[in-house]
C-alpha cells in the first residue's frame, strides 16, 4: 500500500517522535510512504482568518506538489491540522470557483496547478484503521498492551462536519478506540475525546488555554487512565508540554503522559521504545509503560542554555551573535 506522505512542520520538530514512530511501523504494517517533494507549511489554524487567498494558496501548493508523485492519488497527513487544511483546500478548489480562481492564479505564478478532487486526502488514523485493519494489527501484535488503561483522544480537527475522518462518527468517534482495543489495551470512557485542546490558546490567553487543557487531563485522571493516546501534534504539545504549567496554574499535580497512537502500535508490534521516539515526551511515560514491560530510556535533558540577559552589554568578540 503506497501513499503520498505529507509530514507537516510539527513532525520535523516537536512531534519528531510521531514521524519516527510512523516510519517505524510503516514497514511491519506494509505501508509505503513517499514524501511530497519540497512541501511547505499548511498554515496551521490561524492563517485563514488573516488572508484567505494566501492561506489556501499555501496549502494548494502542497496539493500541487503531491500530484507530482505519479500514480499516487492518496495523500496521507498524520497531523490533524494539516489533514483538515488539505481536505478543505481540496474541496474548495472544486466547489468555490472564486477562491479557486485566485488560488490557481497564485499557483500559476510558480508554474503549478491543482484541480479539486484530484487527490484523496486522508488522515493516518483512517489509513491504519481502514487499510491496515484491526485483524492485521491484532495478528502482528507481539507485545499486547495488556493492563494499560488508555484514554483515546481525537481532538477537534478530524471530527469537523463535512470533513470528518473516513466513515467514523463525527460526534463520538470510535476508530482509535477499536485500534487500541485490538492492541490489547484497556480502554477508559473518555467523554472529552472530541473536545478542543485549546490549539494555540496558551499563546493568546493562558488562563483560557490552561482551562481547556485541565478539562481533558482531569477527565482522563478521573477515569484512572495511565496515559492519553493522541493522533495530533497540537494536542500532544498542549497536553504534554503545558501539563506542568497547567498544574502550577491550578495548583494541581496531574501526571498523565501523552503518546501518539503510532508509538503504541509500535510498542505492541514489539519495537524498541527508543526507535519510536518514546522517552522524548515531557510528562514521563516510563512508569505507565512498565506495565507492559517496555523499558523506556529517557532522553537526556540538556541543561538549558543560559538565557542571555537582554540588559547585559555585549561581550567583546561576540558581536553579531543572537
Amino acid at each position, binding site marked *: 500500500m503506497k501513499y503520498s506522505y505529507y509530514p507537516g512542520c510539527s513532525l520535523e520538530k516537536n512531534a519528531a517522535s510521531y514521524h519516527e514512530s510512523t516510519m517505524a511501523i510503516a514497514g511491519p504494517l506494509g505501508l509505503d510512504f513517499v514524501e511530497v517533494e519540497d512541501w511547505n507549511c499548511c498554515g496551521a489554524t490561524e492563517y485563514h482568518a488573516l488572508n484567505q487567498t494566501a492561506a489556501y494558496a499555501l496549502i494548494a501548493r502542497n496539493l500541487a506538489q503531491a500530484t507530482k508523485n505519479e500514480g499516487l492519488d492518496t495523500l496521507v497527513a498524520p497531523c490533524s491540522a494539516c489533514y483538515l487544511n488539505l481536505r478543505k483546500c481540496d474541496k474548495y478548489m472544486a466547489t468555490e470557483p472564486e477562491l479557486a480562481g485566485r488560488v490557481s492564479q497564485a499557483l500559476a505564478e510558480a508554474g503549478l496547478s491543482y484541480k479539486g478532487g484530484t487527490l484523496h486526502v486522508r488522515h493516518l488514523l483512517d489509513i491504519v484503521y481502514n487499510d491496515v485493519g484491526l485483524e492485521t494489527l491484532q495478528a502482528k501484535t507481539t507485545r499486547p498492551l495488556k493492563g494499560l488503561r488508555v484514554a483515546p483522544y481525537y481532538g477537534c480537527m478530524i471530527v469537523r462536519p463535512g470533513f470528518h475522518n473516513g466513515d467514523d*462518527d463525527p*460526534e*463520538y468517534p*470510535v476508530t482509535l478506540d477499536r485500534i487500541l482495543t485490538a492492541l490489547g489495551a484497556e480502554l477508559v*470512557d473518555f*467523554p*472529552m475525546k472530541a473536545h478542543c485542546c485549546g490549539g494555540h490558546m496558551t499563546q493568546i490567553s493562558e488562563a483560557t488555554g490552561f482551562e481547556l487543557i*485541565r*478539562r481533558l487531563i*482531569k*477527565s482522563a485522571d*478521573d477515569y484512572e487512565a495511565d496515559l492519553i493516546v493522541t493522533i495530533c501534534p497540537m494536542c500532544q504539545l498542549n497536553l504534554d508540554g503545558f501539563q506542568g504549567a497547567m498544574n502550577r496554574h491550578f495548583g494541581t499535580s496531574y501526571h498523565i503522559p501523552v503518546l501518539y497512537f503510532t508509538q503504541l502500535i509500535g510498542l505492541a508490534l514489539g519495537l524498541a521504545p527508543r526507535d519510536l521516539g518514546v522517552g522524548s515526551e515531557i510528562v514521563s511515560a516510563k512508569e505507565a509503560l512498565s506495565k507492559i514491560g517496555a523499558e523506556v530510556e529517557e532522553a537526556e535533558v540538556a541543561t538549558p542554555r543560559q538565557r542571555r540577559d537582554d540588559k547585559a552589554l555585549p561581550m567583546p568578540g561576540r558581536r553579531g551573535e543572537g
Partner: protein
Amino acid sequence: MAEKVGVYICHCGSNIAGMVDVEGLARWAGANLEDVTVARDYKFMCSSLGQELIEEDIKKEGLTRVVVGACSPHLHEKTFRKACANAGLNPYLMQMASLREQISWVSSDKDKATEKAKALISGAVRRVIEQEELFASEAPVNPNTLVVGGGVTGIQAALELADAGYHVYLVEREPSIGGHMAQFDKTFPTLDCSACILTPKMSDVGQHESITLLSYAEVEEVTGYVGNFHARIRKRARSVKEADCTGCGVCIEKCPKKVIDDVFEAGLGYRKAIYRPFPQAVPKYPVIDREACTYYLKGTCKACEKFCPTNAIDFEQQDSFLDLDVGNVILATGFDMFDSTRLPQYGYGRLANVFSNLEFERMCNAAGPTDGKVVLRDGVTTPESIAIVHCVGSRDKKHNPYCSAVCCMAALKFGHLAIEKTGAQVYSFYIDMRTPHKNYEEFYDRLLAEGMQFVRGRVAEVTDAARLPGEEGKLIVQSEDTLAGRQRRTPVDMVVLMGALEPRHDARETALKFGISCSMNGWFTERHPKLDPVATMTDGVFIAGVCQGPKDIPDSVAQGAAAAARVMAMITKGTVLIEPVVATIHEENCSGCRICNNLCPYNAITFLEDKGVSYVNAALCKGCGTCVAACPAQAISGAHFSNEQIFSEIEGLLYDAISGNGAGHKVEPAGVPA
C-alpha cells in the same frame, strides 16, 4: 366520417387566464384546428354551469369528441368524463390538456405561454380523434377485511367494521394486540390512564364475533385486486395450543428462565421465556420465546409442560398458514422508536442514567418494572433533577428531517409525572414547543405553572466529565440557550431522550407486499395528502395511523375510523368499477418470452403454462404501459395509449412545424417497426 370536436378552455379564475390569452386561444382553435366544431372559453369549466355547457353542445351540436383545456387530469378528468357520459358520449372520448400545471403556473411570459397552450390543445385534438370507446367492467367486493397491525389504530378500524356487522381478520405481529399505547402510563393532555382506556377496546376485539384475531402472525403474501384480495398469513408457532389453553398463567409462574424484555418493557424489565407481554394481553394465550427457552437451547426443563393443567404446551408446534379472501386491506403497522445509541454524544447506552422515552414510560407505569417509581439506573435513588431532551433523531438532517409530532407533548407529560412522583427539578431542552391540538397549549401553560424549566436550545452533548463546582457525579447537559444567548451547562441526575418516531424497519418490504409506495422518509404514501389521507394509489388498500406519518393517539384513532368508513362504503356498494385503460396481450403474437412478467409493477401479468403465453389481469392492471413498451414482439397493446394516439398527439403538438412541411403530412414513427 369526420369527427366533431368541441374544445373548452377554462380560465380557472385568473389561474390560467392570468398567463394565457384564453379567449384568443379558443378563437384560434375554432378557426384553425381541423375537425373542431365548437370552441369556447369559460370562467370555471368544472362548475355545474361549465359542465352543462359541454353537455348541451354534445346534444345540440352532435359532438363526437371533447377536449378540455384546464387543470391536470389528476384533478378533474373524472368530472368531465362524467359530463360526457351524462350527455351520452363515451367518457373515454374526452381528453384534457393541462393548461394550468404545465403552462400558466410555470410560465412568466404571456405570449410564449399562449403559444405553448396552442400546441397542447392542438395535440389533444389530434389525439382525441384517435381515441376509442372504452367500457368499464364491474367486479364484486368481498365483504371481509384484513386489518394489519393491532395497535390502537388497527383496533379502532377493526371494531368500527365489526360493529357494522362486517367480518375482520386482525393480524398482529406481537403475541398481544395493544401496540405502543399499551406501554404508556398516561396520555396527554388529559392524563387519563392509557391502559384504562385501551384495554376495554382490546377485550372487545378479543370477544367480538365478527373479528378473527390472528396474533403472533404476519402477512406473507398478498395477491388479487380491489374487492378480491387473497392473503396468506403465517401464524408463528406459539408452542401453546390455543384451543386448550385457559390462560391461567401457571406456566409463566413456574418458568425458571428470566430474560430482558426488549419489546414491551423497552429493555428496562424482565419477562419469562414463556410469557404474556402484560397481564391484560389479548389474546390471553402465552408464547414460548424459543430463543430464550431452556428446553429449546438445552433439551431439558419443560417446567411449563409439567405444570400446565390442560396439557396446552406443544413444543413441536410448527408455523401454520392461513389463506384468507378479503375485499379490502387496512394497514395500521405503526412505527419503530428511534435507537438513541445512534446519537453517541447523548451517551445512551454508555451513561447509566440516560434513559429513552419508552424506558421512562415504562418506569412511570404502575405495572412497569419499577412499580411506577421514577428512579435512577441503580433502581433505588430518586433523581433530584431531570433533563428532558427533545428532538433526538427528529428535525435532524443527519437522521430524520421531519418533526415527530408527539414528543413535545409527551415531554410535557413526562415533566408533569416526574414532578408529581419525585418533586425533582425538571428541565426541557427544546427547539420549538409544538402544541397544536385541542387543549395542548393549555397543558403547556400548566407545566409552566408547575415549575418545569424550559431551555430553548438543542443539546450539544450529555457528559459525565465534570469540570465546574457542583458537577461532580452528575450528568452535565451542554446546550446553547438561544433565548438568553449563552452556553449552559446543566448538571442533572437523569436525562430522558425524546427519540423520534421512525417508519417500521421493514416498512418498504411491507409497502412492496401490498403494492403501495413509501415517502422518502419511509412513511406509506397516501393518495392525496389533504383530501384522501387514508386511501393509497392501490385501490382497496388503505393506511391509517403512524405508518402514514407521525401523529398522536386522537389522530391515529380518527384515521383508523376513517379507513373503516372507506372500506364500509366499498362493501355497501358491493361492486367496484374496473378501469378499462389496461394492457391487452394478443395471444397470437405472444412468444411466451415472459419479459413482461417481472416488469409489471402491479403483478398483473401471469404466464399461462398451458397456452404458453402471458396474460394481463385487467383488474390489477393500471395501464402504465411498461409491458407495452418492453414487449419485443409488439404483442401487447395499451388501451387509451395506442401508437396511433400517441403519434397523433405528437403530430398535433408540432402543428406549426408540420404545417411548414405541408398540411396533412404524416410523420412516420422512427425506429418503431410496423
